[in-house]
């Protein structure tokens, strides 16, 4: 037992004193979730859901043209319209309640409706709105073509609100694209440090399967600002985007940690330190448990640290201390522990089946991105019915869902815990068994 802990401690120490690893494990996911999360938070403002003014008469003109990137069509103007005008009359979100918007096809018609006092404010989305927002080789620097806002001088408050909505939505599109950029830069940095990962990443982006997925994050259906949870007491609790983005990013990056942790077994074999351990009077199972346990604890630490930082950021945004993960901290910890176990199990199996550490990096990168994709790290999977069921195969899904539930003040996460611990226990044992067999050659 003492030896297991010594191995665990050694692995924790080496991991948390490695500046590059900390960057990938903590800083990158923190930056990503903060950028995206706070963009959405700006909308909600102070966490309050009191809407003092409702149904601002608004005219919307959309002149925007769609843009094709990597065979996928983008139309942020349309997305904007969808956010303001319900396609389904039963939809009622805070944003839809805020305005009473109707679509005009011509800019001057909208203007005259404002002049006549029929509408208080009109907005005109320019024809090159999407083009100006889209990050591509032709358009490496993003300069937004501004959305014009006309207002009736008699309605200054409404004009101010609409202006801030316009700014916020534009910002989301912008940060969304900035996030794509930042993520890709982070991945490129990793790829440079780790050529095998680079090859894999290169394949993914060349096939065009990588970048477009981010776009879905901006679809109105997936925008978490539309989600409101009713608690039992009937007080409305606003869904905190930091929770959604924070937990899905944390779990995505945790997958890398888990796979890397299991991979360290193969690396230690390559570097002969594993042989040193085996040549010592230490039972094989102790060594294996020490290594896997170390990975597990590393994953738990990573997520706990991330959650603490995200809580601080959430509190800063709200202007007051805020327990963004809900008040049931023990349950949050239980979900973290269970999710980490599941990820470590996946890591153990991936590493146990691979021949070389380089192979683990390639396969592990694919596995982590696949789990992230289907588990909701890049877009809101439930919005796409074709793949929504698949997401249930990922620990990412069960983890983020449990965190969202707890953050909303509810407690029914039993199934999530069982599924996560089950995935974890089974894969952990399978990985252990394969490793044990491989070591006795």
């Amino acid at each position: 037992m003492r030896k297991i802990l010594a191995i665990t401690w050694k692995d924790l120490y080496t991991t948390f004193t490695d500046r590059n690893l900390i960057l990938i494990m903590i800083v990158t996911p923190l930056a990503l979730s903060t950028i995206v999360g706070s963009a959405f938070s700006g909308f909600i403002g102070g966490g309050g859901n009191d809407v003092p003014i409702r149904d601002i008469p608004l005219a919307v003109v959309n002149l925007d043209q769609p843009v094709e990137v990597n065979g996928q069509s983008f139309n942020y103007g349309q997305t904007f319209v969808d956010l303001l005008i319900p396609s389904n009359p039963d939809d009622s979100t805070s944003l839809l309640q805020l305005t009473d918007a109707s679509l005009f096809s011509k800019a001057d018609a909208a203007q005259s409706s404002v002049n006549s006092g029929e509408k208080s404010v009109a907005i005109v989305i320019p024809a090159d709105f999407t083009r100006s927002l889209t990050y591509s080789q032709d358009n490496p620097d993003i300069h937004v073509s501004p959305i014009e806002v006309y207002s009736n001088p008699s309605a200054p408050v409404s004009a101010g609100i609409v202006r801030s909505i316009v700014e916020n939505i534009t910002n989301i599109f912008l940060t969304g694209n900035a996030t794509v950029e930042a993520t890709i830069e982070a991945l490129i940095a990793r790829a440079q440090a780790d050529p095998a990962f680079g090859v894999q990443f290169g394949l993914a982006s060349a096939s065009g399967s990588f970048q477009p997925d981010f776009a879905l994050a901006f679809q109105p259906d997936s925008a978490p600002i539309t989600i409101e949870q009713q608690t039992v007491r009937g007080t409305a609790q606003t869904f905190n985007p930091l929770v959604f983005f924070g937990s899905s990013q944390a779990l995505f990056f945790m997958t890398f940690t888990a796979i890397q942790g299991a991979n360290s077994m193969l690396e230690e074999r390559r570097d002969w330190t594993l042989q040193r351990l085996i040549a010592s009077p230490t039972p094989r199972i102790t060594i294996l448990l020490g290594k896997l346990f170390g990975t597990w604890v590393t994953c738990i630490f990573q997520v706990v640290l991330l959650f603490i930082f995200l809580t601080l950021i959430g509190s800063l945004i709200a202007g007051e201390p805020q327990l963004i993960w809900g008040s049931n901290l023990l349950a949050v910890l239980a979900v973290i522990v269970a999710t980490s176990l599941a990820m470590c199990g996946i890591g153990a199996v991936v590493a146990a089946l691979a021949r070389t550490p380089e192979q683990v990096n390639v396969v592990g990168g694919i596995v982590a991105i696949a789990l992230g994709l289907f588990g909701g790290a890049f877009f809101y999977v439930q919005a796409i019915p074709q793949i929504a069921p698949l997401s249930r195969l990922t620990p990412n899904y069960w983890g983020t869902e449990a965190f969202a539930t707890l953050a909303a003040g509810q407690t029914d996460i039993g199934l999530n815990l069982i599924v996560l611990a089950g995935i974890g226990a089974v894969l952990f044992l399978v990985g252990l068994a394969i490793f044990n067999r491989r070591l006795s050659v």
Partner: protein
Amino acid sequence: MQSQVMVEVRDLAKTFKGKNGDDIQAVKGVQLDIRRGEIYSLLGPNGAGKTTTISMISGLLAPTRGDARIGGHSITREPLQAKQLLGVVPQEIALYPTLSARQNLDFFGKMYGLTGTELSRRVDEIVDFIDLRERQNDRIETFSGGMKRRVNIGVGLLHKPQLIYMDEPTVGIDPQNRRRVLDTVQRLQQEMGMTVLYTSHLMEEVQEISDRIAIIDHGEIIAEGTLGELIQQIGEEDRLTFKVGTQSVPDALLAQFKQEVEGVTSAVYERHDVTNGESETLAQVDGIVTIMAKRGRKALPDLLRIADDAELDVLSVEVREPDLEGVFLHLTGRALRD
């Protein structure tokens, strides 16, 4: 009284599965007896099976056949007891590069069951022994090759093992550090009474430090004994080397050396092509004729005359007293160097 035998290796064999499914017989039924307190060397060229043999003795590889006992404990049936007696110094620098020397020693000490004040006292002693007190808290990755080698050895000594194996501990270090390693090996024997199992492909160092030597080639022990015994096996032959440059040497001439000159037991011709690293053009061809002969100096005039008659221009001549290189050549018909 303790048995005089420290290590007993019986019919040890290892067969690997090759990439294309065929079997690679890396070790083919090795027998060894290593006595308590001696420096025992396994000498053989790269790929001879030294590391594989040592890996089986230390429990890293399961033998395909056979067994090894350390201090009477079978490595396959009582691995933990056997391993407790054994210190290992792998061929690779088996250390954690981002940990300091002291942290490495600390960690591996724990794996050998050392704790508390005993552990820190042992680490202190080792740090002094390998002469790294000043740098003990620096990361391994900042060390020079020689310093890493010293820590690599130090880790193997932590738990005061009765037996220590060192797999090619002088590979890749400068002559000064090599000297230091060889001195260390002798201090282990003399000051600490350890048994040392040493492997190398360099005959000079083996010749210098070993009490007994086993020569291994293609997975088999082809000769074993003290330096004197091994040299006796080849009948005290001298080794003569003729450098012949780019000239080729016909087999007939080699045969003639053997038949016509008294005392000559073997004559082989080898070419060493020396290429320029980058352009891979042939820079120099070094042809060498190696002749084993009893009383080599006496045979020399006759040999040179025959060469002259065959219009072979001998560029330089070297006569060497019997050594391990000669033993290997005698037994295998090949030079020990790659």
